[in-house]
């Protein structure tokens, strides 16, 4: 395939086909824009709307139906969806380079770009967290939807954030025995959130749905993991504490996550202004979801973790604005959802004890096997990269970067292209584009 043929122009290019990206693309395409949507995954929906790829899996139907509606609306709008594609560089204004199927380099030009890259889980290092069977909570949920059976398995769900409850309920539905749900936030910290949910019908309904699924599940508020325990190399349990006592829970799997980190890397590469958060960075936007970069919008979790309803509203606002349509009728609701996100941040703020879970020999950077002791000896992120290769592996610091921010308070390093590992031939075709077409 000749590289020069692979240039596509979009009025509106949306990166990410989760709820925010789908809403943005649909709104813009409905109003006549030529819209292309890029997504890394094999199917649209993002993480919260990740569908089962295995026919035999049973799924709760309620969240799926909103997903199906959103995808049907996208297709009806005339927008074009490209799955298994990732943006890896932004070589010039209004140009991005894209890796398709981990293999082919493609180029897109755009009038307006909408960043809808979602969020990832915050993973914190504790002894044993690299054992097979210790997974991200959302990660385990995704793998179950991708055909991994947890039927009969004993699962401990530990960490913080609203995702833990959703994951525990989903695992229970999938036949797992959730032997523990440990939320590091204390019960008293949760009360304002619970009160605010009583006033919001959809969130209350969802909360009650999960509560019904989790009846009989041992729930411990104000407890957190201190160690995943192996027996002859195989995960056998998790040790938890509330600061004064410690218990060991036998289990086959540990699902862990400490709320979410915005995937802000693409926006940062594009030159958008960001604000520091306790775990990473978020993209600054105005009430129309415009970033500080002309022609670039940002929607959903990269602007600050606020959940599904915020993502849908922000997406629609950006899509309408990109198409030159009014969106002010949505701004009040979007502001309310933003406030809900800030309440989540307060509720699930990490306790200090979580900064000191790692032992000297605990791996901090999983890609490069840099230990806590090695990384701790460095003055900051740049020195750690140079001295220990922490953050230099293929994840490019997406897992250990937020961890070092929490554990050591380090500033995250700035991003550089390529945003993801790219095969040499795809880079070469991207460079030839550059010479021929710019």
């Amino acid at each position: 395939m000749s590289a020069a043929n692979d240039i596509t122009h979009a009025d509106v290019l949306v990166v990410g086909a989760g709820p925010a990206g789908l809403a943005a693309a649909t709104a813009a395409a409905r109003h006549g824009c030529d819209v292309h949507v890029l997504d890394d995954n094999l199917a649209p929906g993002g993480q919260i709307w990740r569908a089962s790829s295995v026919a035999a899996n049973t799924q709760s139907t309620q969240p799926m139906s909103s997903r199906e509606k959103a995808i049907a609306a996208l297709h009806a709008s005339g927008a074009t969806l490209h799955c298994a594609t990732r943006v890896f560089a932004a070589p010039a204004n209004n140009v991005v380079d894209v890796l398709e199927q981990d293999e082919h380099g493609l180029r897109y030009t755009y009038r307006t770009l909408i960043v809808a890259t979602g969020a990832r889980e915050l993973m914190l290092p504790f002894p044993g967290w690299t054992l097979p069977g210790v997974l991200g909570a959302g990660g385990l949920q995704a793998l179950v939807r991708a055909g991994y059976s947890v039927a009969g398995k004993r699962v401990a769900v530990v960490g913080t954030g609203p995702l833990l409850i959703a994951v525990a309920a989903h695992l229970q539905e999938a036949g797992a025995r959730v032997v523990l749900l440990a939320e590091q936030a204390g019960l008293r910290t949760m009360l304002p959130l619970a009160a605010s949910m009583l006033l919001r019908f959809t969130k209350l309904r969802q909360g009650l749905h999960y509560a019904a699924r989790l009846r009989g599940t041992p729930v411990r508020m104000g407890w957190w993991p201190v160690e995943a325990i192996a027996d002859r190399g195989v995960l056998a349990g998790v040790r938890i504490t509330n600061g004064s006592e410690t218990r060991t829970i036998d289990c086959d799997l540990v699902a862990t996550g400490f709320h979410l980190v915005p995937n802000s890397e693409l926006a940062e590469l594009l030159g958008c202004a960001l604000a520091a958060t306790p775990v990473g960075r978020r993209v600054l936007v105005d009430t129309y979801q415009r970033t500080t970069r002309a022609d670039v919008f940002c929607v959903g979790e990269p602007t600050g973790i606020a959940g599904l309803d915020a993502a849908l509203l922000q997406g629609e606002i950006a899509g309408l604005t990109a198409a030159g349509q009014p969106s002010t009728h949505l701004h009040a609701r979007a502001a309310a959802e933003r406030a809900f996100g800030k309440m989540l941040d307060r509720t699930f703020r990490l306790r200090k004890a979580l900064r000191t879970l790692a032992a000297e020999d605990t791996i901090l950077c999983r890609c490069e096997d840099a230990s806590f002791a090695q990384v701790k000896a460095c003055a900051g992120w740049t020195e750690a990269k140079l001295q220990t290769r922490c953050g230099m592996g293929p994840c490019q610091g997406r897992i250990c970067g937020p961890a070092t921010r929490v554990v050591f308070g380090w500033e995250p390093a700035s991003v550089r292209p390529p945003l993801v590992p790219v095969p040499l031939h795809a880079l070469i075709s991207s460079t030839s584009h550059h010479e021929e077409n710019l």
Partner: protein
Amino acid sequence: MPEAMPEAQCVQIYLNGMPRQVARGTSVAAALLLHAVPCRESVKGTPRAALCGMGICFECRAVINGVAHRRTCQINCLDEMRVETQR
């Protein structure tokens, strides 16, 4: 489990040379977990398996049909696919 499944709903793959059947639509990472096969060995030689499940952490990278560093959570099993633990 796979034995009870009609053939059309199954794919046959090889995990470190061992033939295994999994449901069609199963990701390679899920197949590796189902059969307790590590995705890779780390720099210091410890076994690793999937972590984030969404293509970000690269813990699930393995060798697929001879190509190293494939993110197995973002790839579905296909008939006759050969998956090896990445060392």
